[in-house]
């Protein structure tokens, strides 16, 4: 229904003093034609509507005739009915088109099937303007006798036909026959009949003239009641008949002004003229010097309105247009060229996308990672389904970047990460399933999830809900899981909403909650212990050799709590400017281990060329340490044994830190249809550890090369 509100505002709520022009009719008609020659056959329905929207923008500036405005509406309704299968909306838009111009018809070649069905329903539901039926009238056959009170049989014949037409509600025909009767015999009674039919037929000017005659002449003929009725109707009609003021130009010779083809005497120009309601065409011609100048304008007159039109004569070749954008769109031959004007859209039967990615990471902490990945997705936008998969391989010099490579032997390990997902739309409701795994020699993670979303408020608001379950097995390299492993369960819920804030902005927000149970303590991570007298003196960043010199002798394994609830509140704003998109993300994090964090990520993507996109990227992450985080844990030997902190960790990502990334990327669209993409992005990463042993800071670099192709 949001479609209808906006379309109605295009043409429906125009002020009584609105002025129209048909100056841009030709350009808009070409635009409509191009939509049904290009976008519509290719099923690019969103692009088709974008072009029609542009046409409406031009018409809103008052530079299209009612005939062309109606055509734009027919175009929109055709896309809604034939392309997007939205019959209800299409019917309402067809009704608006018919209101705009009762003589409008469907677009040739797009007048069958669901389009015709919606059109027929719209026509049945709404009368096409006043019931004017001007059929061919019968001729008096002759040979009849005039009844009593009539001078001519001919006048009586036509009078009878007028009565019949009035009974059949063929008011235009009634007016015609009454006129024929008056032509044969001028009778006040016949004029009264003609006035009534003319009023019903929307020919109020004729009706006013006849009512006036009857009210003046009726009493002298003894038709007092008829005259009184005529006077009442005359007064009522005078109050609501539209008035038109045609202001002539300052100078023009041989000025001739016509209203619906009928000449308006020059001495009536500048004053109020009565005019019938509805669409009227004003034309004028004259001479300025030796040049012939003309004027043409369509105007819709509403009941009770007063409309002033300035007759501005221009040379026939002169056009007042704003067709910079129109020309750009007319010449667009592909989606990307259209995007250069107003942005891209979607729409085809089945889309297949394949991507290959190679990313790498290296840092000053002797960690190197190479990650090749492949992905694919198949989607049917019109049928509302899709599925995809991915496979990533991590080849790392250490199992993770959180272990200080210099404090433990380096090793190379390979991790495999397959993933699949699929979705199906049921009207405005979308249901998706997904699953994935992470497979390493000492860690197995399997996850599955379900997600649902629904489009509300004409797809302006899309709330979503997702649930995921994870089952992890953590073991030791070289040891079977059955011999040694700990099990970690994870239940996660994500509730979000995406909101179309305006034509250029999307806002996304949500909350993720993760409930984790199980022992996640690393079986390889030993935590140095210090004497209680020495611990306070240990500085942050103390090197390994010094740590070994001052720590206690025991080797103590990490021990973490076995329950953790993690919460993240996130928001994202994406705003599209003329040729760029600005995006900013913010995440606020909290967990029951006491870690609090804020992460801000921003990108500004510039379409410098239809084939080239560039973007800078910045990311900042700050976090506190876990409640149990300590720079230097203490241990004490007592008579009862070794006293250790119940919870202890050397996981750097559980300590307070700041991390900053900065970089950018570039993407090239290749191929004739620009459906191939080659992208490269790189970031420098700096991490500052605020209260850690062994390390104060780390510099790293990340880069990724992505090749992708879209096939329709």
């Amino acid at each position: 229904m949001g479609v209808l509100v906006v379309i109605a505002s295009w043409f429906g709520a125009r002020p009584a003093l609105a002025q129209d022009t048909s100056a841009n009719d030709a350009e808009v008609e070409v635009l409509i034609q191009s939509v049904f020659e290009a976008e519509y056959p290719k099923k690019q329905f969103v692009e088709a509507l974008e072009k029609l929207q542009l046409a409406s923008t031009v018409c809103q500036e008052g530079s299209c005739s009612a005939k062309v405005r109606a055509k734009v509406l027919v175009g929109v309704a055709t896309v809604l009915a034939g392309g997007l299968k939205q019959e209800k909306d299409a019917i309402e838009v067809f009704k608006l088109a018919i209101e705009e111009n009762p003589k409008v018809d469907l677009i040739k070649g797009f007048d069958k099937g669901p389009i015709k069905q919606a059109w027929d329903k719209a026509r049945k539901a709404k009368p096409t303007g006043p019931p004017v039926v001007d059929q061919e009238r019968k001729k008096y056959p002759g040979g009849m006798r005039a009844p009593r009170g009539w001078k001519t049989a001919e006048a009586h014949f036509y009078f009878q036909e007028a009565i019949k037409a009035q009974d059949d509600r063929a008011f235009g025909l009634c007016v015609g026959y009454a006129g024929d009767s008056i032509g044969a015999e001028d009778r006040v009674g016949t004029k009264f009949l003609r006035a009534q039919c003319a009023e019903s037929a929307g020919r109020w000017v004729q009706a006013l003239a006849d009512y006036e005659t009857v009210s003046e002449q009726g009493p002298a003929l003894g038709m007092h009641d008829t005259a009184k009725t005529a006077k009442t109707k005359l007064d009522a009609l005078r109050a609501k008949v539209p008035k038109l003021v045609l202001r002539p130009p300052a100078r023009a010779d041989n000025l001739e002004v016509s209203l619906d083809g009928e000449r308006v005497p020059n001495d009536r120009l500048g004053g109020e003229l009565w005019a019938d309601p509805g669409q009227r065409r004003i034309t004028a011609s004259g001479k300025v010097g030796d040049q012939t100048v003309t004027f043409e304008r369509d105007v819709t007159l509403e009941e009770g309105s007063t409309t002033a039109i300035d007759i501005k004569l221009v040379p026939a070749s002169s056009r007042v247009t704003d067709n910079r954008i129109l020309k750009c769109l007319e010449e667009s031959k592909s989606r990307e060229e259209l995007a250069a004007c107003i942005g891209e859209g979607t729409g085809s039967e089945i889309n297949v996308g394949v991507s290959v990615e190679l990313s790498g990471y290296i840092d000053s902490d002797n960690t190197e990672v190479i990650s090749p990945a492949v992905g694919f997705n198949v989607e049917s936008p019109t049928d509302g389904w899709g599925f995809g998969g991915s496979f990533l391989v991590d080849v790392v010099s250490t199992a993770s970047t959180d272990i200080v490579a210099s404090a433990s032997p380096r090793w190379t390990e390979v991790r495999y990460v397959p993933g699949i997902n699929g979705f199906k739309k049921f009207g405005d409701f979308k249901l998706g399933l997904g699953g994935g795994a992470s497979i390493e020699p000492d860690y197995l993670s399997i996850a599955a999830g379900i997600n649902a979303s629904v489009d509300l408020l004409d797809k302006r608001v899309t709330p979503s809900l997702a649930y995921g379950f994870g089952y992890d097995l953590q073991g030791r390299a070289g040891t079977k899981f059955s011999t040694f492993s700990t099990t970690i369960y994870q239940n996660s819920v994500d509730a979000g909403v995406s909101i179309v804030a305006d034509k250029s902005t999307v806002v996304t927000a949500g909350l993720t909650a993760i409930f984790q149970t199980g022992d996640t303590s690393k079986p390889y991570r030993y935590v140095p212990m210090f004497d209680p007298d020495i611990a306070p003196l240990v500085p942050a960043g103390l090197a390994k050799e010094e740590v070994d010199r001052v720590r206690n002798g025991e080797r103590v394994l990490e021990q973490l709590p076995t329950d953790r609830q993690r919460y993240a509140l996130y928001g994202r704003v994406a705003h599209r400017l003329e040729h760029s998109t600005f995006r900013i993300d913010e995440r606020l994090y909290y967990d029951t281990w006491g870690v609090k964090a804020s992460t801000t990520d921003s990108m500004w993507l510039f379409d410098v060329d239809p084939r080239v996109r560039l973007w800078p990227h910045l990311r900042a992450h700050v976090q506190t340490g876990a409640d149990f985080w300590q720079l230097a844990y203490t241990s004490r030997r007592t008579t009862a044994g070794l006293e250790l902190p119940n919870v202890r960790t050397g996981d750097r990502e559980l300590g307070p830190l700041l991390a900053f990334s900065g970089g950018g990327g570039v993407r090239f669209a290749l191929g004739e249809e620009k459906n191939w993409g080659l992208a490269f992005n790189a970031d420098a990463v700096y991490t500052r550890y605020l209260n850690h042993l062994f390390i104060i800071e780390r510099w790293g670099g990340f880069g990724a090369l992505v090749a992708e192709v879209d096939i329709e």
Partner: protein
Amino acid sequence: MQAAVLGIVAFTSGCAPVAPYERGKLAHPTMSAGSLSTMGEEHLHAISEGATGGSGGTGSGCGCN
């Protein structure tokens, strides 16, 4: 929860209506509601930052962190 729903209603009631044919800009690939990060980038963030979540969905874990 009620406050969140009221907040969404209040926010959306202030938003301008956008008809389907006015969503050309919104359909631009850079306007995706999801993340534009590559797979490798997302993994790097997941293992080098102590926070998680905010991706709008759920995923599998790893022995990385």
